[in-house]
């Protein structure tokens, strides 16, 4: 299976998400965690490119990190799946390798 990419920085702070989206092969897994969860929100300057990415990759967001920032699941873009830490472990195990875009 493909690579799981993890993005832990807000797209409004660093360019990690842009780099990830530019280089990830089609069909990759992309997980937003920590401040990276801001990239999963509807109605932001990053929403359009993330929605497009969700059509080309499997995009996930870490639920506990959303909750820690006061965000609800209904604020998340369609096509993005919410996972918990156990789901994060499963994603890491299911993919062939994990690349952290720090």
């Amino acid at each position, binding site marked *: 299976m493909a690579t799981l990419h993890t993005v832990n920085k807000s797209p409004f702070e660093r360019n990690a998400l842009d780099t990830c989206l530019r280089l990830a092969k089609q069909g990759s897994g992309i997980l937003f965690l920590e401040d990276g969860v801001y990239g999963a929100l509807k109605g932001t300057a990053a929403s359009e490119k993330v929605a497009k990415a969700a059509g080309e990759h499997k995009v996930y967001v870490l639920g506990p990190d959303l909750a820690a920032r006061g965000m609800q699941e209904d604020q998340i873009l369609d096509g993005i799946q919410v996972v918990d830490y156990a789901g994060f*472990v*499963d994603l*890491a195990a299911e993919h062939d390798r994990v690349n*952290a875009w720090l």
Partner: protein
Amino acid sequence: MKFGILVNEGPYTHEASDSALQFTRAALAKGHEVTRVFFYHDGVNNGTRLGVPPQDDRNITREWSSLAKEHELDLVVCIAAAQRRGLLDADEAKRHGKDADNIAEGFRISGLGQLIEVAIQADRLMVFGD
């Protein structure tokens, strides 16, 4: 499956150490092996026993220590990164003529070869950092 964990960020900085802890707990709960946790760069600051966070806050170092005790985890602190930042065990303190050591229970100081080794041995290397 075998996981290696790399922590490149100090405690209470952003969230890397918390994420690494939570991931390690979840992996162990699922029956995976966590072969080694390697603390590098500012991540070595997770290994000081002299930290005194407020009582209503989490004590990240203590959480690593107790998790290591419970699951016999190998918590390794990079020696070069540790020496630069004043993290010493008893042997290193003596070797450098320092008056105290500060490494927390369950952590040990070793070299970068330990990171290379776990990267080879583990099925996945999970990187947490800034």
